């Protein structure tokens, strides 16, 4: 089973980002997604900076994929997308149809991320015709849904033409908006946000009035309140036909989780990030996403 590292969802200091990916060079991951996927205002790393990181990772033997914005609203967003799609060296993860449009024009194969709505194999077929070679199961779909989609893909003669990836660990990106909720929490308008999201390397917690963590704010993105943790389901994920599992970078725990996935006991398996309080498994098991394994009746 291939282990992949998803794009960094948060806005970290540039030095922190560079140091993080320097470490990743040594980690047992085969494939790394790079780039800003959340907010077009986060520009402290230029495309050339990302390409520099990409080269380091490639030199360390990783497959590098450039990821792209999920919500493109302006001509400048599209221009940046075009530069990424046209880079000519690394494949691209599409998180919006605009990327599919450009990549299919260029005849370049692509991957789709977890925010990309693929709910059936007829959709997969349309996208394979445009160059899709790998997709990530949408977060809200279950193991049974995955089996059904792959079964339908088989009936359509698509087997062997694509790779399936499943998001297994990290805060789940569950919504995108025009509004910046982190700025709103600070009573700042988006246009004068002062990049307050930088103060929250793992996002800003949202609790309800009973103290239950319900969501996490990350700029214009709203994430799950609980961390997804499907480490106990990896063999099931593989049995259902997925070839890769995706870990999403968090400020803490990411390395331990990857080591645990790699099956290096003692190095990661015992850490609290792997066992995880306040984690959830509901979506994969066909129920509400927030539900923890303990509350799921087999």
């Amino acid at each position, binding site marked *: 089973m291939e282990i992949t590292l998803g794009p960094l969802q948060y806005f970290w200091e540039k030095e922190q980002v560079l140091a993080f990916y320097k470490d990743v060079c040594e980690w047992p991951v085969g494939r790394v997604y790079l780039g800003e996927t959340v907010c077009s205002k986060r520009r402290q790393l230029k495309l050339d900076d990302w390409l520099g990181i990409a080269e380091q990772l490639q030199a360390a033997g990783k497959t590098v994929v450039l990821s792209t914005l999920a*919500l493109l*609203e*302006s*001509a400048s967003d*599209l221009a940046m997308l075009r530069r990424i799609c046209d880079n000519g060296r690394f494949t691209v993860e599409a998180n*919006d*149809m*605009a*990327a599919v*449009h*450009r990549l*299919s024009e260029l005849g370049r194969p692509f991957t789709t991320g977890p*925010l990309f*709505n693929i*709910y*059936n*194999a*007829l959709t997969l*077929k*349309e*996208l394979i015709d*445009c160059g899709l070679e790998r997709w990530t199961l*949408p*977060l*809200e779909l279950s193991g049974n*849904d995955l089996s*059904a*989609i792959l079964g*339908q893909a088989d009936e359509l003669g698509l087997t062997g033409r694509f790779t399936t990836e499943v998001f297994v660990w990290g805060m*789940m990106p*569950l*919504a*995108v*908006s*025009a*509004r*910046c*909720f982190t700025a709103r*929490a600070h009573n700042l*308008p*988006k*246009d004068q946000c002062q990049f307050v999201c930088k103060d929250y390397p793992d996002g*800003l917690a*949202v*609790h*309800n*009035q*009973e*103290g239950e963590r*319900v*969501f996490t*704010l990350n700029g214009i993105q*709203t994430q*799950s309140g609980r961390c997804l943790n499907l480490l106990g389901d990896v063999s099931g994920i593989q049995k259902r036909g997925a070839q890769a599992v995706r870990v999403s970078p968090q400020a803490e725990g990411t390395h331990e989780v990857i080591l645990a996935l790699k099956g290096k006991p003692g190095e990661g398996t015992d850490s609290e990030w792997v066992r995880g309080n306040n984690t959830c498994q509901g*979506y994969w098991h*066909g*129920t*509400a*996403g*927030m539900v923890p394994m303990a509350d799921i009746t087999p």
Partner: protein
Amino acid sequence: MELVCPAGSLPALKAAVDNGADAVYIGFRDDTNARHFAGLNFNDNKARKALDYASNKGVKVLVAINTYPRPGGWSRWTSAADLAIDLGAHAVIAADPGVLGYVRDKHADIRLHLSVQASSTNLGSLSFYKERFGVSRAVLPRVLSLSQVQALAKNSPVELEVFAFGSLCIMAEGRCWLSSYLTSESPNTVGACSPAKYVRWEESESSMNTRLNGVLIDRFAPDERAGYPTLCKGRYEVNGKLQHALEEPTSLNTIALIPQLEQAGIRAVKIEGRQRSPAYTAEVTRVWREALNTYKANPNGFAPRDEWQSTLAGLSEGCQTTLGAYHRAWQ
């Protein structure tokens, strides 16, 4: 601009038609559309009556088949598309590429409108849907500012329809899974956000608690009007401060933007609310018809009338309205 109005029932459709809608959009009685609520929507027979009534008065009927089918339910979506074609509907409103491809391959004499659930917000995406599926019109998500809408309209390869009035979805539609995170059901999969069957109202002497699948969404004092627990409109604690962390209970109202939208070349304005009563449909349609006619009669002298605004505010969530994302400061 065309006035596109919602109908969740035959009486609502008649109300829309009688009050000046240019087009009415409906859905069938299952999870193939994004307002899949108990007691709402049209079976075969009612849909035929709806088509007859509307076409006799020269009003178009659009059929929303705009959720995302999983393989087990695929045939329901194709049956819905077949029925829409058979009824002679003016257009199918769809979001799922599989469904769009199905309608394209039928080569039927029916237009394809890209649903807001496809979350298409830019030229690249709009071009894709036009080139791949032959989409004629796209409904824009409620995430763009007015200047972004204007810029898009300048070069759009398809007709654009924008939201004019109704409940305000603050996320890019089709890309919000918060509802299934809390309840297992989302607009994409079952056609409902914060579904009623998961709602619990808990009244005590000191407060009214509203819950969604057990999770507290809001708590109201006895003198407050308790709103439906739509998950993005609850009061939560962020950095120790209790607030509407995502959005207040409010409705979108863009009647003041009619001149700008018209001048930008927007082809249609959409009223939200298939889940609302025929009286709501009648009132909103009447006000918007009057407003559009008033603009047409005297484009330079257009100003929203107080009577329109107060009528619309009265039909709004929390009795307040906003320009939403159209107004940059809202973002």
